[in-house]
């Protein structure tokens, strides 16, 4: 009897509480890490998606500038192309502005200035009625090259801004 009275319980209540606390903290830590990881992964996936979209738009402009330079464009086919690109860029920039606070007008030179350089050029106007492929003069080609030189960095700046946003 005496022996039994002296036997201490293997675990006291405070020990159970401590174990419970450890388990709860562990679970909480696991949940937090998983949630943050998922959120970070989501953010990264979204950034990669927008960066890919920006690269695609850059490629389309680059391709069209090459076509313009090598005289492969017909005047009447350019207007719908500019319109479609503008709609696409507007959608993209609206989302990029909402998610990453980037200026919506960042690609405006490509949306308006390039269109103006092309459609206001004499070569474009003179070939419009017959819809002949436009052979740009040296002056117009210089204007196109100058446009490219001035604005080529915009896409990289945009990609960096998306990537660096926290």
């Amino acid at each position, binding site marked *: 009897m005496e022996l039994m009275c002296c036997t201490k319980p293997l675990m006291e209540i405070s020990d159970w509480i401590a174990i419970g606390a450890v388990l709860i903290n562990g679970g909480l830590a696991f949940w937090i890490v998983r949630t943050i990881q998922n959120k970070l992964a989501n953010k990264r996936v979204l950034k990669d998606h927008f960066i890919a979209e920006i690269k695609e738009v850059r490629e389309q402009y680059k391709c069209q500038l090459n076509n313009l330079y090598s005289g492969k464009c017909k005047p*009447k086919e350019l*207007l*719908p*192309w*500019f*319109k*479609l690109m*503008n*709609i696409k860029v*507007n959608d993209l920039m609206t989302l990029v502005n909402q998610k990453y606070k980037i200026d919506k007008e960042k690609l*405006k030179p490509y*949306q*308006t200035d390039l*269109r*103006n350089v092309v*459609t*206001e050029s004499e070569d474009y*106007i*003179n070939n*419009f*009625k017959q819809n002949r492929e436009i052979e740009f003069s040296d002056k117009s080609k210089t204007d196109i090259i100058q446009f490219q030189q001035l604005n080529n960095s915009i896409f990289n700046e945009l990609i960096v801004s998306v990537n660096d946003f926290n």
Partner: protein
Amino acid sequence: MKNKRNISVLDSFSEYPGLRHCAVSDDSGEEFYHKVLNKEFKDALDNNEILIVNLDNTAGYAPSFLDEAFGNLVYDFSMETVKNNINIISEEEPSWKDMIYEETFVQWEDRRKSNEAPKITGNHSEWYRLNANGELEYKTWN
């Protein structure tokens, strides 16, 4: 509250608008102005209506088309009258609206004040324009 008179470039003119002048393109801004916009705007004024011009659903515009069409309107009716009686809709490409309001209207109002008449490159029937007495006159202007 004024009533609205709706027109669209697509329905009242062309799916494929051209360039500035009749001499360089079919379906030009000059032609749209003389065939559609001048008369519709005058009718809207006479009926105390706002003219709603919808630019959407065409194949796309050259800036010169819109500049010539809406610039002529300002030249013939004055910027104040045009601004107070027109509403331009361009949901697909909102930048057109900015260009027309911020550049075309202002530049063509200056032209109007300095009597720098628009270039006419097609044969047009009579149209409305403010005369020297500030009254709208219907004739073939040079």
